């Protein structure tokens, strides 16, 4: 429990910074919503999109009505999903490798603790921090949605869709947290882990983008965890249980593998 508490304390500042940045982005996004109608941006986008081939329209989010709060927010929320996944990945990637990189593992592992206890404390602390982080942002999204809603807005539909989008993003984030932990428990050079997890995220994200280009490439979306919780689809059709299950199983697998790796790893300080 002592390690868990100290992990919370150690990472509080990082979480707070990410929280402030994400809240700032959310406030900006919601502040922009009334302008979609007022400044005729929807018309502008429709004109631009109509000149693009259908495949590109698909990548750009298709024909969306940005004066509708649900469609507007779901189209913009993909950026938030990206931020959550990257943040969770960094949390995981930093977890174990940083102790080795900074040399503090020589202090920690000289104490009467097992490697399993160290990993569990770090994992649970990050799990709690990421959960609280997402919960706060969910509440802010709902609150801001309520503030900027217009006459067309079905707020209960917006609230349900927003909740599901956050749940989807949360599960995708947990997957990257688990993969980050796996990298952190395996890689010898502690300073490489963050670069690796960000690299993995963007490679899979690009693969996910390519999946929308043509029907034959549709299968590629299975290799893009961030797209498992595609906000536009989640807002309109809800979460896909199979994709969520795949993410959760893969996360559990990555965590199990992390324990295995960490328990046989040499600490080079």
């Amino acid at each position, binding site marked *: 429990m*002592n390690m868990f508490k100290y992990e919370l304390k150690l990472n509080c500042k990082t979480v707070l910074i990410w929280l402030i940045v994400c809240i700032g982005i959310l406030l900006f996004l919601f502040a922009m919503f009334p302008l979609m109608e007022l400044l005729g941006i929807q018309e502008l986008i429709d004109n631009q999109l109509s000149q693009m081939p259908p495949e590109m329209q698909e990548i750009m989010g298709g024909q969306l009505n940005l004066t509708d709060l649900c469609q507007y927010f779901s189209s913009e929320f993909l950026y938030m999903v990206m931020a959550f996944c990257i943040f969770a990945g960094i949390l995981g990637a930093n977890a174990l490798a940083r102790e080795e990189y*900074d040399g503090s593992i020589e202090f920690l592992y*000289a104490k*009467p603790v097992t490697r399993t206890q160290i990993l569990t404390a770090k994992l649970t602390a990050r799990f709690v921090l990421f959960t609280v982080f997402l919960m706060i942002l969910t509440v802010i999204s709902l609150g801001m949605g309520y503030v900027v809603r217009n006459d067309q807005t079905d707020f209960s539909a917006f609230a349900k869709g927003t909740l599901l989008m956050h749940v989807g993003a949360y599960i995708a984030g947990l997957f990257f947290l688990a993969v980050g932990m796996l990298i952190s428990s395996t890689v010898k050079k502690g300073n490489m882990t963050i670069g690796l997890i960000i690299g993995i995220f963007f490679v899979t994200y690009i693969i996910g983008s390519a999946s929308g280009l043509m029907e034959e490439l549709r299968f590629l979306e299975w290799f893009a965890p961030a797209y498992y919780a595609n906000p536009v689809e989640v807002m309109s059709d809800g979460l896909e249980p199979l994709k969520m299950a795949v993410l959760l199983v893969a996360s559990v697998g990555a965590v199990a593998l992390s324990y295995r790796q960490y328990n046989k790893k040499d*600490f080079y300080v």
Partner: protein
Amino acid sequence: MKAIETCQLTKNFGLSKGVFDLNLCVEEGERFGFIGPNGAGKSTTIKLLLNMIYPTSGAAFIFGMDCAKESARIKQGVGYVPSDVRMYKNFKVKDLLDYAASFYQDIDRAYVEELVKLFEVDISRKFGQLSFGNKKKVSVIQALMHRPKLILLDEPSNGLDPIMQERLFDVLERLSQDGSTVFMSSHNLDEVQRFCQKVAIIREGKLVRTAETSEISLERPKTIRISAAADVLSALSKQYTGSTLQNGVLTFTYQGDIGVLLRQLAALELTDVTISDVKLADAFMSYYGGRGNEYV
């Protein structure tokens, strides 16, 4: 009971780096010095004992428990002072010490405060703001706060000023008197000679020698310095090969029955004679200074 025992302990990093077939035995309550040059395998051995790294083959035991399998249980009774002190730099020293204390039951807070006062540590400062010497002091306090049964020190006096070194050895002395085992690796051979009862010498990952500290010094040759008339010195210099004559003083190394030498010198007209004990440092140098294995 053996405090530390290693059986054919090997950690092979490749390119002949690591430790090889190490058989160490440290009895409970002993003060044991572990000496060797950089890269000889001292820190690797300590890291194997702490299960920071796994052995390629062989095994290490502390108080009869396998270091790779019962590491957490072992560490209840172990205190470790690393050579290079790196901890959570954004934490205040007080928080770090509280954190360290939280891993043990029944920590004597008065004893921790006593250590803090003894080593003159400012606990209100952030760890990252401290000088290397002060970081070392924090490391010493967190390692000794639970009065460990086994104290592992890697270059303990490194970074400490002479006063703090003295205080550290006073604390170690007291813990040793209370039954703690002290295992220290050091480059400071004089402190090993002064503090340790036994010494092991490691070279290129292999144990060269384990002996009583006094034994190593006693069996070493004596350094003899003689002042006398030129003809006397000239005669002696012919007898003792390797002797040097400088400013009217003949210096040579003598190994053998000291009585024989004294009887010979008594028959001569000398103005001055100095017979000095060879320090552990010289013994150490003989293993590493290219003079072969004459004392092995």
